[in-house]
Each structure stands twice: as structure tokens, then as C-alpha cells.
């Protein structure tokens, strides 16, 4: 009874404390199943009185004391913390307890009676069992606020741990935390949060006093062991994972880096993730993502994209007649779906690089997974923020292409002037060269350049968040308008006006490429009851893109010039302008290609904390997208119109159960659940040929064709994963995913995909702690997993399609077989090993090193067969890949006035074709060969000229005198196998000025120097005209063989630069006096993107590969634009 009264006194006292704390916004203390396990539980906290009064029923016989403690806490539905060593030392023998509907306080009193242990409750109703000799009920209080060092915004859900032991709390919506009854003396407080570098600080507490410790966390793209990342089974600490999951903190980065799209957010952040932005200057241009390189011979290598748990469309491929085709209509290039998202609405991105980590994400995940988390409601306090982001982009093509061209004048045997006379013409006695004049090339002259300068992009956005009680909301809207780099040259605009008899051309004609995009993002978070979190998110975006196929400008990019004729004495622009006019009139100005697109993503996500050791996670989500693309080529005759209607629908349903248990020093985390994925793309392409002259209506077409696009896929999968931890230092995990993916006609046949991984924290072993205390963190990890890519329905079932056939002027349905059925076709199956180590020295220098090796069997290949034979898809090839990834983060200075660090990353990947199957003879297929990489280029180079054939030894390299290498051979790869990134950052004057930069380097690949290759045709070199030119140079310039101009594409690029200033509006404008607290925080950033390029490559831009395959490995792409931007952010 004495003890019971004492407990009740404690109850009343703590209840009073908690009433104060809870009214300020209490946080619930996390479940404690071992001395340091953290769960992602954010429910509102009950008061101490409520906790202690809960009736409990427990029946345990002869169990260790810790288990009895946990049983009591579990029965009450509350959490309890204790130091395992302390309680076991106090009660070494087993105990028995049987209580029924007894108040929790009384039940604990009965359990602990006669022991040296005592029960205390702390802030938020958390129970702590501690030794009566060391614990105190009359200590001090620690309070504080956790914020982002970069944005100064409060961090909700940050984990704050006292003395590395039992007392842990999570910060509330305002970033506040509080520890009560802290023993007097010095304590260590460790704070960690998702996406931030853990911080450890000391504080001294005295009895009956309150100490304040505010902590500002530095964002980090480098994982530390206790950082929490999103996995297929929910949030997990990095230390528990045997594989790498890299995180990008988008929220903070987007405000302070020159980022206008999701692809720019991803670029240069993660080793092993390549963003191929082939046409940098094109508004809404295509973007390809590669995780650990190209993975497949035939299927696209795009990673899966998951947004808030919902599978998103990852590429712009559509199924046409059962086959995946790039949805490139009418010469336009579709933007990447990932860039349909407003980058300002993204909170964070987790990157899962390969099968070793992506197994549980289900089908198609063998290329890795990009997991995007959008912004959610954080605070019940009403806040808003606004940003404006004006950008000026200029494609620096003029500096990288020859500015001087040559015109070679001659005469024929009759003395008549001849333009473009060459040595070859002389050899053929067609003409004789008289003189050579120089001129400025088209691209170098503003009047004739297809590249416009200072193309603007405007981004604005506003967001609002707030709420009341347990309901919070976040709403944002954004607008983006971008002008593409291409323009119809002003000189030609005048010519076209004359041709059309008009005095003004529309803006769409003059600037054929632009994009407008508006987006809305909303999120509502609720807690219908204390154990349930409910979250609803909706995204909607709409855009209009005036498309332009840059290849239409190809010849003009290569050269062209306006010259002065020595014969007429006047500007002889007839040929040059005529060429320009001809190319543009048909391809460009008379073509309009406009796409209206809309996207919708929505999901409803609930997390139910069934009991302290079990959480049920349910998610339903949908995506919907439409495209209406109208192309019109209104020629004087035989005009062409095309309309593409596309709709894509996706549905995701997941149900996940996660349970935890902690018997003794072991911890178990079990996750399992089913997942349902549905994806459908459908559409209709209508083409009209032979429009009535002058008509822009498809209805006037002489012939109309229709083609339907359709793809419907359902996947039902089940996953299960068990993670076992030992003493928080060794984690072993095993998982299995069973997937059945149905395409039309397939039977459901579950495919088992296993994974295992292990993580060992060596630095927490006593023997290492003692011997090498400077090793702050050392972890070894390894993982193995499998993942698949599925063939399309047409590949497997054969491709019999209905299309009208004209017979005697009548349309008759025809059935075409374009590839044979292969009923035994199976998915491509990838297996990946990944192993590595994480090392942190002196709590400062952090290093991650990862090796990986992957083998993909049953790679699909389209076997064309001989002439007239029907092709078929077969699982014939095997490919191995391996690579290395390294990241090093080094803090340089850490003073009050200057904090700086530098991060270096390196990634290497390569592939090797192990087999092409028996059906494919070795060497029989140019571009793919056993023993060589997937992206190998094979060819024959020019090695000499025998000036004896043709016109004889005349000093002129003629076609039949060219000597080539005797056989095709390997010339290099077209994807960069090595990438390096250097990211220095600095923060000055208490973080009020922040600087950062990103430098990229890519090496080890070859690319076609198209500008040099076509210098003869473009008249930008003298080789085809000057008899003194070495024969081999003449041959290369006259008979352009692309393999002769395949050169290393190594480059270093100054990718990003940013300077951000915090504007102390409150102080400057005396806002407090005016009660305009909302304008208390503002920043302005000066940003630069693609500021400099260092490369021995002489073409336009080695990074602007037009596409990602062998045949487009050249410089047809528009160079990356150099952009300058200002960004204004105002945040309350």
C-alpha cells in the first residue's frame, strides 16, 4: 500500500507536467522493443494519468523481468523503455504475474514490488522502468526545437535520444521536444531525422530547472547509419539494410539549387544514377534515367517510379499492336513522364539501384526504383510560402561549332561559274577550282541561326498548410512556362512572309517549341483515432507543349553559310537560303505539332497501429494521364494531319503488415502483404493523308487510317520479409516476392523472387571501440536479390494485327503477322549481388563504398531471320554487369562563421554479353557481340588512301582509292561507364549565406564528332578543296564515315552554382511592429546551370546524345543550355 500511494503521487505529479506539455503539442513516444529500436509511430500522446489508469490483464509464468514489463505495457497499449542490463541485473530470476483488469500503475507496483526497480512516466505518457538507485523523480527538464540548418524550418518527427539509451521522443509539428525528470548532470542528446545528418550535443541539467537545447540539423545526401529511408516494406534505418538506398532531400535542394524539373533534381546527386538529357534546350525534351547502366538488349532500361507508394508511368513507351514503341508522334518528342511532376511538390527521393534492393517492389523493378515522396501536411499552424523562379537559358552552340565557312568557286570547261567545286569534281573533270572565300556560318549569325538566345522560363508557386486538431492540410500550386531553344531564323521569317504574302508570322511559327504547365498538389492528413493516421494526396497537372523535332534542323546545325559570290559581286545567298528555306518550309514552319496533356495522381494511405508491435499499412492509389496531340503538315498538296489520343490509367493497392518483437538482445521485424498493380494504356492514332489544298482539317483527307494503342497489365504479388537484429549491431534479412503478371492471354503463374541481405555494425563492437575510437562508424553489408522484366503481350502471343488493306480502292480488313508467337517466352530475370562498407572517421569523414555484380538471363531478342521470314522474340541472351560506387563526404571547416564541406562521388559500370543464344551466330549481328558490352559500337575506319586508282596519282582522294580496315572491330561504348561528381558547399554568417556548386565528369565513352564529320558538306573545313590536304584527311572529309569520327567524349561540366542569401525581413522592415510575422523569412538565390564545359571533344556537346542507342550516338542533340536564374522564396 505504501508503494501504491507513492505511485499515485507520481501519477498526479506527472499528469500535471503532461497537461502542460500536451497542450503545447505533445508527441507520442516511440515503441521500445529493445533499448534503441525506433518505430515510425506518430500518434498523439495520451496523458500520464490516462496511461497509468488503464486497466490491464496479464498472465505470465516464469518469464524474465523484461518480458513481464513489456507484457504489461502491451496490455495497456503503451510503450515502455528500460535498460535491459539494468532490469535484468535487478531481477535476475524469472517472475510470474497474473492480474486482471487492474490499473496499470497497480500492476506495475505488483510486478516491481520488492525489487530495486521503479516505474516513472515521462513526457507524453511514456513509461520508463529504471533503477531506483540511478533514477530520479526530481530531476530537471530539457526542452528544445529541432530545425533544418539550411531552411530553419522546424522538423517534425525527428528522433531525440537522451544518453544513447532509454529516453527517446519525437518532435512535434513545430519541431519541439521535451524530456522531464532528467537526472542532474551532463547528458548527451542525439538528434536524427530522415534526410539529415545526425547531431550529437551535450547539455547540463540541474534539479528543478529547465535547460534548452535547440538543434539545427544539416541536410545530407549521404546516408548515415541511423538515417531513415523508405523501403518497399516501410521506413527503415540504414543500419538495418544490407543494400544501398540513397536519398535526395528535395525540399531543401530545390530551393537552393538551379533545379526546374525532377530530372534536374536527380542529376548528379546519386552515384550510379545517370540522367540522359539528350536535348537540353528543348522545352519538355525527352529524358532517360539509367540506374547502373543499360540493363537490357531489347526492353527499355528505365527504372520503376513510385510516387507516395503508387506505381507511376516510368516512360513514354506505348504498346502498338502488342509491341512497346516510343510514343513519338509526328516527329515530336514526348517529355518524360517524370517531368510531368512539379519538382517543388517533392519532399524527398529515395533511389533503389538494383535487384539486390528492388526485389520486393515487384515486376519491372530490375532496372531499379525511384521512390518519390511528395510534400505532406506538417504543421497544424497555418503557414504559407511563395516562390518565383525566373530562368534565362542560352544554348552555347555558337561557341562550339565552326564559325568560319568556306566557299570554293570554280568554272567548268565552258568557262561557266560553278558553285561548290571540289577536288573530287576536279578529278572528274567537272570543274576547276578558282578561288576560296570565307564566310560566317549560319549558326554564328543571329539572322540565320536556328538557336535563339536567352530563352526564358518562368516558374511560380504558392503553398499553404495548416489545420486544426488532428487534421492538417497542405495545398500548393505551380506554374511553369518555358520557351525552347529553337527558333525559325529571322532571315527566313522574312523570306517566308514574302512567300506567304503576309506581314507577320505567328509566335508559334517563329518559336516552334514551348511549354506551359500548371499543377496543383494537395494533401490532407488526419488522425480519426489515436492509433490511425490517414493521409490523402492528389496531384493534378495540365500542360500544353508546342513540340519540335530537333532532327529537322539537323543540316542547319551542321553548318551552312551565307557567302559573297566573286562572280556576281552580290551576296550569293540563293543556294544557302534556298536550302534553308526548303528544309524549313516542309519540316518546320508549315508544321504545327501541339500536345495537350493532363496528369492525375491520387492516393489514400492509412496506417493503423494495431498494437505496439504491429502496424497495418493500407494504400490505394490511382494515376491517370491524357494526351491529345495534333500534328498538321499543311503542304500546298498532299498535306498530312495526325491526331494522337492517349490515355493511361494506373491503379495500385497495397496492404502491409509490419510486426516487431524483441526477445532479449534480438529484434525481429516482419513485413508482409499483398500488392495489386494495374496499368492500362490506350489510345487512337488517326492519320489523314492528302488533305485538300489549304485545308487544316483531317476530314478533308483523301485517305484516313486509324490505329489503336492498347496495353493492359495486372500484377498480383505477395511479399514477405523477415529482418532479425542482434544487439542493434547485426541485421539479417530474408525476403520473398511472389508475382504473377498477366498480360492478355497469359496464365497467372507466380514467379518467386528471393532476396537476402546482411548488415554488421563493426564499429559498435567493443574490441574496435577500444582500439580505434576514431572509427565513428564502420559497417559491412551485403545483399542479393532477384527481379524481372516482362515481355510485352505481342512478343509472347505473336503479333496478328488488323489494319485496312486497299484492294481496288476499297478498304478491306487485313490481318498481318509481324512476329510469330512464342508461347514459352519468359520474363528477363536479373540476379544481383551487392556488397560494401560504410566508414565514418572522427565523426567527420564519411565514406561509402559499394561493389555490385548483376547477371540477367533470358534476355529477349528480336530475331529477324532471313528475307521474307517472320521475326520472333526469344529468350536467348545472357548479360553480366558489374560496377563500383563510392561517395566521400568531408567537412572542411566548422566554425561559427563558416561551415563548409565537400562531397565526392564516383560510379563505374560496365556490361558484357555472355551469350546471344544458339540462334544468333557469333559476329552475325552488328552492335551486339558475345564478350562485348551492351552498348558497344563496332565499325570499320578509314586507314589510308591508295592514290593510284580512280583518276590516278593526282593528289586527290577518290572513293575507290579509300582503304578501310579489313574487318569491323570494337570501337568503344556510347554510354559513359565512369561518372564523377564533386559537390562543395559552404554556409557563412550563421547560415545566412549559403553557397554550393556541382561539378560533373563523365569518361570512358566515345561519341561521333558529327560537326567534323560533316565539315565537307557544311563547307567548314578546307580538306575537300585544298590539294595540300593530306589524302586521308581529304577522304575523311569527302566520304564521311561516322566511325572515323568516333572520338572520346570525356567531359567535365560545371553543372550547378548557387548562392543563397537569407533576407532578414523582420529586422529590415520591422515586421514585428507591423504584426506581419508571415513575412519573417525570405531568401533569394542566384543560380547558374551548365556554366562551363571542359572537353577535348570538338563537337557541340558530348552530353547531348540524341537518344540512348547506337544509331543515335552522335551530336544531333541540342547542347545543354547555360541557364542563369534567380529564385525568391518567402516562407513564414
Amino acid at each position, binding site marked *: 500500500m505504501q508503494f501504491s500511494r507513492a505511485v499515485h503521487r507520481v501519477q498526479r505529479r506527472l499528469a500535471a507536467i503532461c497537461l502542460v506539455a500536451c497542450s503545447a503539442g505533445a508527441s507520442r513516444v516511440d515503441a521500445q522493443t529493445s533499448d534503441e529500436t525506433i518505430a515510425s509511430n506518430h500518434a498523439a500522446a495520451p496523458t500520464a494519468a490516462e496511461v497509468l489508469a488503464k486497466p490491464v*490483464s496479464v498472465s505470465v509464468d516464469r518469464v524474465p523481468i523484461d518480458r513481464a514489463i513489456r507484457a504489461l505495457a502491451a496490455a495497456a497499449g503503451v510503450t515502455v523503455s528500460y535498460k535491459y542490463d539494468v532490469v535484468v541485473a535487478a531481477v535476475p530470476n524469472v517472475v*510470474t504475474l497474473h492480474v486482471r483488469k487492474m490499473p496499470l500503475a497497480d500492476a506495475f507496483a505488483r510486478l516491481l514490488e520488492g525489487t530495486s526497480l521503479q516505474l516513472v512516466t515521462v513526457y507524453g505518457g511514456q513509461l520508463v522502468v529504471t533503477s531506483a538507485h540511478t533514477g530520479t523523480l526530481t530531476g530537471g527538464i530539457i526542452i528544445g526545437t529541432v530545425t533544418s540548418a539550411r531552411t530553419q524550418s522546424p522538423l517534425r518527427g525527428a528522433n531525440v535520444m537522451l544518453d544513447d539509451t532509454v529516453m527517446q521522443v519525437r518532435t512535434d509539428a513545430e519541431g519541439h521536444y521535451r524530456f522531464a525528470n532528467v537526472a542532474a548532470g551532463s547528458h548527451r542528446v542525439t538528434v536524427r531525422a530522415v534526410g539529415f545528418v545526425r547531431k550529437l550535443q551535450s547539455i547540463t541539467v540541474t534539479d528543478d530547472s529547465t535547460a534548452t537545447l535547440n538543434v539545427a540539423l544539416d541536410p545530407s545526401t549521404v546516408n548515415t547509419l541511423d538515417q531513415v529511408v523508405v523501403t518497399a516494406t516501410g521506413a527503415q534505418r540504414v543500419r538495418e539494410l544490407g543494400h544501398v538506398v540513397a536519398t535526395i532531400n528535395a525540399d531543401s535542394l530545390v530551393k537552393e539549387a538551379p533545379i526546374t524539373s525532377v530530372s534536374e533534381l536527380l542529376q548528379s546527386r546519386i552515384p550510379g544514377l545517370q540522367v540522359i538529357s539528350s536535348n537540353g534546350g528543348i522545352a519538355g525534351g525527352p529524358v532517360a534515367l539509367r540506374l547502373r547502366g543499360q540493363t537490357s538488349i531489347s526492353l527499355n532500361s528505365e527504372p520503376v517510379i513510385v510516387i507516395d507508394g503508387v506505381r507511376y508511368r516510368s516512360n513514354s513507351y506505348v504498346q502498338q499492336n502488342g509491341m512497346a514503341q516510343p510514343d513519338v508522334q509526328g516527329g515530336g518528342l514526348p517529355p518524360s513522364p517524370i517531368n510531368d511532376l512539379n519538382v517543388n511538390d517533392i519532399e524527398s527521393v529515395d533511389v533503389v539501384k538494383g535487384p539486390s534492393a528492388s526485389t520486393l517492389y515487384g515486376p519491372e523493378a530490375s532496372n531499379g526504383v525511384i521512390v518519390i515522396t511528395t510534400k505532406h501536411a506538417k504543421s497544424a499552424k497555418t503557414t504559407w510560402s511563395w516562390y518565383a523562379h525566373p530562368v534565362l537559358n542560352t544554348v552555347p552552340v555558337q561557341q562550339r561549332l565552326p564559325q568560319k565557312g568556306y566557299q570554293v568557286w570554280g568554272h567548268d570547261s565552258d568557262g561557266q561559274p560553278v558553285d561548290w567545286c571540289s577536288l573530287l569534281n576536279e578529278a*572528274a573533270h*567537272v570543274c576547276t577550282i578558282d578561288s576560296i572565300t570565307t564566310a560566317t556560318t549560319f549558326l554564328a549569325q543571329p539572322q540565320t541561326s536556328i538557336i535563339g538566345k536567352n530563352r526564358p522560363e518562368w516558374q511560380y508557386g504558392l503553398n499553404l498548410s495548416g489545420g486544426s486538431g488532428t487534421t492538417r492540410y497542405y495545398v500548393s500550386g505551380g506554374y511553369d512556362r518555358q520557351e525552347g531553344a529553337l527558333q525559325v531564323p529571322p532571315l527566313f521569317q522574312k523570306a517566308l512572309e514574302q512567300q506567304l504574302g503576309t506581314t507577320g508570322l505567328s509566335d508559334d511559327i517563329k518559336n516552334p517549341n514551348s511549354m506551359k504547365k500548371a499543377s496543383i498538389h494537395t494533401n490532407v492528413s488526419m488522425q480519426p483515432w489515436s492509433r490511425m493516421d490517414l493521409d490523402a494526396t492528389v496531384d493534378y497537372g495540365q500542360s500544353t507543349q508546342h513540340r519540335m523535332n530537333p532532327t529537322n534542323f539537323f543540316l542547319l546545325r551542321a553548318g551552312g553559310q551565307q557567302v559573297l559570290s566573286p562572280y556576281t559581286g552580290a551576296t550569293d545567298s540563293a543556294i544557302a537560303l534556298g536550302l534553308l528555306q526548303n528544309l524549313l518550309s516542309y519540316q518546320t514552319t508549315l508544321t504545327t505539332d501541339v500536345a495537350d496533356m493532363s496528369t492525375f495522381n491520387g492516393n489514400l494511405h492509412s496506417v493503423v497501429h494495431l498494437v505496439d508491435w504491429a502496424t497495418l499499412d493500407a494504400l490505394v492509389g490511382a494515376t491517370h494521364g491524357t494526351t491529345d496531340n495534333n500534328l498538321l503538315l499543311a503542304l500546298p498538296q498532299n498535306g498530312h494531319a495526325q491526331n494522337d489520343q492517349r490515355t493511361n490509367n494506373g491503379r495500385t493497392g497495397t496492404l502491409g503488415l509490419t510486426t516487431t518483437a524483441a526477445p532479449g538482445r534480438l529484434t525481429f521485424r516482419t513485413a508482409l502483404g499483398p500488392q495489386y498493380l494495374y496499368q492500362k494504356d490506350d489510345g487512337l492514332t488517326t492519320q489523314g493523308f492528302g488533305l485538300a489544298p489549304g485545308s487544316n482539317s483531317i476530314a478533308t483527307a483523301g485517305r484516313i487510317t486509324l490505329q*489503336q494503342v492498347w496495353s493492359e497489365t495486372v500484377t498480383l504479388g*505477395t511479399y514477405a520479409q523477415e529482418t532479425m537484429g542482434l544487439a542493434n549491431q547485426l541485421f539479417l534479412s530474408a525476403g520473398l516476392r511472389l508475382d504473377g503478371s498477366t498480360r492478355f492471354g497469359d496464365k497467372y503463374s507466380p514467379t518467386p523472387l528471393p532476396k537476402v541481405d546482411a548488415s554488421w555494425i563493426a564499429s559498435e563492437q567493443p574490441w574496435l571501440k577500444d582500439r580505434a575510437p576514431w572509427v565513428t562508424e564502420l559497417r559491412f553489408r551485403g545483399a542479393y536479390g532477384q527481379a524481372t522484366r516482362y515481355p510485352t503481350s505481342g512478343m509472347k502471343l505473336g503479333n496478328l494485327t488488323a489494319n485496312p488493306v*486497299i*484492294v481496288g480502292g476499297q478498304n478491306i480488313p487485313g490481318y498481318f503477322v509481324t512476329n510469330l508467337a512464342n508461347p514459352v517466352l519468359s520474363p528477363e530475370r536479373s540476379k544481383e549481388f551487392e556488397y560494401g562498407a560504410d566508414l565514418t572517421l572522427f565523426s567527420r569523414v564519411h565514406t561509402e563504398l559499394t561493389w555490385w555484380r548483376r547477371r540477367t538471363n533470358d534476355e529477349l531478342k528480336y530475331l529477324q531471320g532471313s528475307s521474307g*521470314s517472320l521475326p520472333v522474340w526469344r529468350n536467348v541472351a545472357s548479360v553480366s554487369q558489374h560496377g563500383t560506387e563510392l561517395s566521400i563526404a568531408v567537412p572542411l571547416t566548422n566554425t561559427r562563421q563558416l561551415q563548409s564541406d565537400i562531397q565526392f562521388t564516383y560510379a563505374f559500370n560496365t556490361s558484357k554479353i555472355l551469350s546471344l543464344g544458339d540462334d544468333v551466330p557469333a559476329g552475325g549481328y552488328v552492335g551486339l557481340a558475345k564478350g562485348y558490352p551492351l552498348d558497344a559500337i563496332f565499325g570499320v575506319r578509314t586507314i589510308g588512301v591508295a592514290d593510284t586508282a580512280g583518276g590516278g596519282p593526282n593528289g586527290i582522294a577518290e572513293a575507290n582509292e579509300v582503304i578501310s580496315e579489313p574487318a569491323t572491330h570494337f570501337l568503344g561504348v556510347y554510354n559513359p561507364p565512369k561518372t564523377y561528381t564533386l559537390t562543395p558547399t559552404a554556409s557563412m554568417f550563421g547560415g545566412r549565406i549559403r553557397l554550393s556548386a556541382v561539378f560533373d565528369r563523365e569518361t570512358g565513352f566515345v561519341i561521333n564528332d558529327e560537326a567534323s564529320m560533316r565539315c565537307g558538306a557544311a563547307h567548314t573545313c578546307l580538306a575537300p578543296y585544298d590539294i595540300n590536304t593530306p589524302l586521308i584527311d581529304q577522304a575523311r572529309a569527302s566520304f564521311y564515315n561516322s566511325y572515323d569520327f568516333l572520338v572520346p567524349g570525356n567531359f567535365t561540366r560545371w553543372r550547378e552554382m548557387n548562392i543563397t542569401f537569407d533576407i532578414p525581413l523582420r529586422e529590415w522592415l520591422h515586421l514585428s511592429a507591423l504584426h506581419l510575422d508571415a513575412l519573417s523569412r525570405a531568401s533569394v538565390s542566384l543560380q547558374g546551370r551548365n556554366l562551363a564545359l571542359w572537353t577535348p571533344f570538338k563537337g557541340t556537346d558530348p552530353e547531348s546524345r540524341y537518344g540512348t542507342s547506337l544509331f543515335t550516338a552522335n551530336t544531333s542533340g541540342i547542347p545543354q543550355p547555360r541557364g542563369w536564374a534567380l529564385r525568391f522564396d518567402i516562407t513564414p
Partner: protein
Amino acid sequence: MTSPFMSHSSPLLARRMMQRFALAVATAGVCACHGLLDVSDPTLIRDQDVANASGANGRRVVAYQAFHGSATYLAHEVALFTDEQSFDQPIQYATGSDELYLDTRDSHGIEFLHGGDDPHLGRLGSVITYSSLALPGIRRYTPDPLKGDYLAQLFSYRGYAILQAAEDICTGFPINDVTETQEQIYRPVYTTDSAVMLALTQLDSAIADVKDSTHYLYFSNVLKGRALLDLGRYDEAAAAVATVPDSFAYSTDPSYGNTFYYTDQGNDPAWTFQAYPIGDHEGGVGLDFLSEHDTVRIPTRYVRQGFNDTTIAEYTENKYPSDMPMVLASGTEARLIEAEVALHNNDPQWLVILNALRTPVGLAPLTDPGTPDLRVDLVYHERAFWLYLTGRRLGDQRRLIRNYGRASATLFPAGGNPFVPSAPYHNTTAIPFSFANESEFNPYVTAGCISQ
């Protein structure tokens, strides 16, 4: 710490519920309801969906499209390869052009460019493949008399394709086919004669199957006569075409356009880089297609002075001034076959037959040149003019070598190329096929051209 009583506590109940739930979700994927997984694809049509008369007709018209869609392309390639047409283009753009390789008969160039795709053999192969895919359905689902006529149509297409391949492509080429169950068939490679024999079997089938359609009967008859002529079976050739009336003509479907119209007339020549001048004594031995000034059979049109040699006036054909059909077989060809047979038999009717064709169109009658060789030359000159740009010329040139012992140097252009001086003529006398492509899967293709 005694036990007042024992009972199931709520955590234990919850744990049991969790275990049941776990079991349920673990088996959900495996025991999935098939209805949930049902999907559709209206664009995908299975073989069983077209196992009916409509489906059979749908496959037949695909063969029709393959045949009519490729015929003028084939003729265009033959015209470039022979002396019917030349090729001109600015030197910078001419290099590497497959049309230049065809014109100069550069077999390595043709093979190199066609490494992954063999247009000539490929087009002919598609006709064979698609007709094979159509035949079973027609036999099974189409009622007579339509069945017989459709079968005749498909067999005549096959006969045409195989015969054209035999006449154009070097010996040692493959003829691929598919079975009714869509399995690929590879057979030993063909010589000119063995391919012609195969064509004859197809044409005999067409003639045997035909019911009401004299159209396909005559078409097959002319093709059969042409094939027999290739084999030197002259009397049989004459007999095969004897019933074909003078007025008969089998033409390409105009809906499929005409390659000559597009390449020669379709674009404004002022801005067209390439041109296809009419061959006129091309390479010294070519026929006088331009200088004969036969505006009835070979109408012409002036284009420009040559790109690389402005002294050469370039004329293009005007036989196809619009998207008009190309005649593939006709009563005229039947009579030409009869004339050649008559000449072979020393029957003076050969000249009578030729003049009977000329007189109605206002051409002056021919006179006997007096010697056997000149008579043969005259017959083949007439064939070349009547059948200009119909894909016959290469077969004729090779038959002159094979049946009449003519030297190839007297038939195929040689020496320098006036239009592209840096690309002289080669000595190939048959269109090569792509060994790299054909040998990739066909085990019988172990070498390229065995002979010309």
C-alpha cells in the same frame, strides 16, 4: 505475484488475429482470383480469332498488299541496276547511297548497306511468306468458285515473286517460307534454273486452281511463258501464252502508288538532290532509251543539267506522269514471248508479231536486220522498250547471257560513271543478296553469290 486466474489476454488475441491475417495475405497472391487478373487487348488478334472466311480473306489481302506494294520498288531497283535508269546526286551526298551502289552494281556496297535488311529479296520474300499464311485459310473457309480464284491469285503471286528473284538475284540465294502453323522453313539455296522450276510449280497450281477468273489465268499464263523462256523451253513457252488475248493487262493497284512517279516526278526538281536520268547508252553498251526518241513507249521530261557535270542534260522518264499503275503482265508480253519463240524456231512470224504490236500505236514497222544476232538484238530491243520500267530488263540481260551466249560486257554498262565520276561501274550482273543477313538463321546459306 501469484496467479489469481488464467485467461486469454487481449495481446494474445491480437497476436492470433495477426497470425491469421498474415496467413491470409501470404496466400492471397498465390490463390489469386483469375477474374481479378483478366485483361483484354482489342488490338491483339489471335489465330483462332481469324479462323473463318473473313479472317482468311484478311490474310489474303495482306498478300495482295505485299505484292502490289513492292512491285514498283522492285522495278525501280532493276532499272537502276540495268541500263534503264542512271543515278545522279551531288558528290557529297552520293557517297554511301544504296541507289548509287545499285546503279554502279557495286556488290560489296549493296551487301554492306543491306547488312541488316535486304530490300530486293526481302520484298519478294514477304510476298511468299504472306501468301503462304493466306493459303490454308482460303482452302479451308472460302467457298467455291471464289476459293479457286483466290488460290490462283496467291499462287500467281508466289510464282511472280520466285520468278522475279530467279531473274534478278545471283545464284545461291535462299527462298524462305513458313508452314501453316507459322514455323519457319529453310530450304537449300537456289540457282536461277531451280528457282524458275519452283516458280513453275506455283504457276501450274494457279492455273489448275483457277475457276472463273480469266484475269489470274492469263496472268499466270504470261508468267509461265516467261519462266519457260528462261529455261529455254521455247515451244512450251509459246503454248503457255497462246490463249492470252492482246488486250490483257495485269497491273499494280494504283492505290499503292508508283515509285517512279515519286522518285522522278514527285518533288520539285529545283530542290531535289537526287535525280534518275533515263539511261542512254549507259556505260557505252546500254540501250538508246533516250536517243531513240520513242515518245510512245518511253516518254521523257527534261529535268536539269547534271549536278556534277553541267554538260549532261538530264531527262527523266515520263511514262508514269502520275501515280499510275505499272503493268506486270500483258498480252503484249505474251506476243513478245511468241515472237522470241518464233525467232528461235526460225519462223518469220517473229517480225510479223513485233510489227503487229507497233502498228496500232503509230510506230513504224521494223525490218529484218538480216543476221541471227541482230534479230535477237531487235527482239530484245523491242522487249526493252515495251517493258521499260517494269522490272524485266535484268531478266532479259541475264537470259541473253544464259540462253544466247552473249558476253556480259556487251550488256552491262562499264567504265566511268558520267554522273558520279568517283563511282565507276562494277562487273556484277545479278543483284547480290545480303549474306550476313541470310546466313544469320538459314543454315543452308553458307556462302554469298555462287555465280552470276
